[in-house]
């Protein structure tokens, strides 16, 4: 196998780019919604055979072992080429969790099946009535012999309908307050008592699910780390993935589509449009620069601070403004579902709009991000 880490960074980027351009299926580029597993399976299984499921894992566990810099390049190239995401929580979260806190048995049992996509994982953090507030977690796990018996409900679980397993947070100490008393459990979704119900979103797609857990028996060997330490581990898992909540790609891509629409409609000769576009162009440009600056931190191996939250706020709200201008610029088309023909390309202004709607909500609402910034960065009392 090629030693990717030995390549100079620029060469690495060139090679990855060339590979994607030559091999990634054209019809899966820039999907207008989150893809289901059966739609992207073929591509990811091929990549798995080539040993490329987990670029960030250490080689000893079957990953590619890329440096942080190369991981960023890799993700940038995926975004650039519009590569669809897999249901990749196993790679992104469970793998790192087990490598750091798992028992040898857990590593042996789960890691290879993540790499082969035999197991597809989903995340069980959010609950109804908890919103952005994990401290009010209600799902309970009660010890009973060799098992925990889990009762509760998870929601906003991305692509749970495609998953075989869920890693979840459950309350194991009812007396403990807030974030204490929470544990990390690995649950096979085939266990009796698990019900998965997809939630259709506003755009008519089924990206999220509700997951009901009724007397679900989880063997104690599936507890990760120490009991009641779940919250601490969950926090530690938030690595440089947080950077991607502020990725400029969504906004850049939206601006590109708006540009296409504007060229086709001749809006660049309309000074009123140009004034708005020119502002958004700079908003996206400065977002890109700020992203680079945080990426530099990651490349230098430094941890990201709480200030990364502003990137998410600015990036998603810029995306939102672009989408609003796209709908406005579509005029009568702004009411029509589906892509509309502009010149020789199609633009779906409404998809931009519907994609922008949740961006300010997921990954911690922008209100929560502002709370974090005012407290941890501005240190306002």
């Amino acid at each position: 196998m090629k030693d990717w880490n030995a390549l100079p960074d620029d060469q690495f980027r060139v090679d990855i780019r060339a590979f994607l351009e030559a091999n990634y299926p054209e019809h899966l580029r820039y999907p207008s919604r989150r893809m289901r597993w059966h739609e992207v399976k073929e591509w990811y299984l091929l990549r798995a055979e080539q040993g490329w499921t987990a670029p960030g894992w250490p080689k000893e566990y079957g990953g590619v072992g890329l440096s942080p810099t190369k991981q960023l390049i890799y993700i940038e190239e995926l975004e650039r080429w519009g590569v669809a995401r897999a249901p990749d929580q196993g790679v992104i979260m469970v793998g790192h969790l087990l490598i750091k806190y798992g028992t040898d048995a857990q590593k042996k049992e789960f890691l290879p099946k993540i790499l082969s996509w035999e197991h597809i994982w989903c995340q069980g953090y959010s609950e109804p009535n908890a919103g952005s507030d994990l401290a009010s977690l209600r799902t309970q796990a009660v010890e009973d012999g060799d098992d925990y018996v889990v009762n509760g409900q998870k929601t906003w679980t991305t692509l749970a309908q495609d998953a075989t397993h869920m890693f979840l947070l459950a309350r194991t100490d009812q007396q403990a307050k807030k974030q204490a008393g929470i544990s990390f459990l690995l649950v096979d979704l085939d266990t009796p008592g698990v019900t998965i119900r997809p939630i259709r979103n506003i755009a008519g797609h089924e990206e999220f699910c509700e997951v009901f857990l009724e007397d679900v028996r989880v063997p104690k060997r599936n507890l990760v780390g120490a009991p009641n330490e779940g919250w601490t581990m969950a926090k530690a898992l938030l690595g440089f993935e947080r950077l991607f909540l502020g990725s400029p790609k969504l906004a850049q891509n939206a601006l590109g589509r708006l540009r296409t629409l504007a060229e086709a409609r001749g809006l660049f000769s309309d000074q009123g449009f140009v004034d708005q576009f020119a502002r958004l162009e700079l908003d996206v440009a400065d977002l890109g620069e700020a992203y680079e600056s945080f990426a530099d931190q990651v490349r230098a191996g430094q941890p990201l601070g709480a200030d990364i939250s502003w990137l998410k706020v600015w990036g998603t709200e810029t995306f939102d403004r672009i989408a609003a201008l796209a709908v406005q610029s579509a005029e009568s088309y702004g009411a029509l579902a589906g892509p509309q023909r502009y010149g020789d390309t199609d633009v779906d202004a409404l998809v931009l709009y519907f994609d922008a709607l949740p961006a300010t909500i997921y990954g911690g609402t922008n209100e929560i991000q502002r709370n974090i910034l005012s407290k941890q960065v501005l240190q306002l009392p």
Partner: protein
Amino acid sequence: MNDSADELRMLADSVVQFARNDDTLTRTRALHKGGAAFSRETWSTLADAGWLGILVPEDSGGLGLGLREMAVVAEELGRARIPEPVVAVAGFTASVLSACDRKAAASELLSELASGATIAAVAWQEDPTDLDPATTHCRATHEGNAIVLNGSKCLVLPAEADVFLVSSETDEGVALYSVPSDAPGLALERRQQVDGSWVADLRLDNVSVSADQMLASPGQGLPALERGLARAALLAGAELTGLAHRLLGMTNDYLATRKQFGQPLSSFQALRHRAVDLYIQHELMQASLRHAFRTLRPDSPLALEQRLAARVKARTSDAAMRIGRESVQLHGAIGFTEEADVGIHLKRIMALSAWLGNAAWQRRRHFELSRNTQQEVA
């Protein structure tokens, strides 16, 4: 004035009563699931209540009431978010017909419209990015006793109409003809809008009409369309105001009851203040409507109606879009689900905001119309 206010209140109450019995949202979701935009059965109920005939003269079987009454009904129907195209048909089409000079033909169609027997839609637009009804490339030519229409139309609402009012250029200016949806030579392509409604693109290929299908004679079509467009924009503004009001209510209820960190969401000042800003947006919508109806008289000149319509449609489209967008945000993740009521309202707002000129377009139009007036006065 008090009598009139009471009457308006009673009219509004009757719509509220209807909506209470209707369970509109469940019905709408079921309709959309089956690919239907609205229900013909409910359409009959609306006709029986008299609402389709508010703008129809009494001698054509209508109630012979004014725009203000129609606006009250539109606002309440908006609040109930009914899927039926009441403003498009009983507002837009009825207004165009009332302004047509071929009274006999127009009156007959008006009476069918009021009774609910016929759904008629205005087919005037030919390019989605051109909202000037004078831009008419569709041609009407004489062939023997018949008139033959050739051309195309777009975004005709509702696509389900039984009859289309087709504007066509003649040598003496724009005329309007009634064309049944099953007329030979008429091809129809349906496109779905974001709110589940359907619009039609029409292609007319030697569609033959007789003289008594002429609704507005050559040269009279344009003023009839202009009048109808102004009134439809006003009424769309009223429906948007009702929709926005309903969303505000839902959002404030949600903020007041939903808890986070052990407190209702509304205890967070940043959210309270945003709720206030949305409330202000709705007050502005009401102000623009109130101004229009304070100013308008049955004999108001077209130019005044157009200016007021632009002002109302600009404000209500803009404010409703803001209220819709922010309501989703304030509902958090739940607001993004299809099952949440917030989305179904937002989508209707999106469709109505774009219809007949969105906020940005209407602001420019209002500015131009005001400048013209100012220059005339000066």
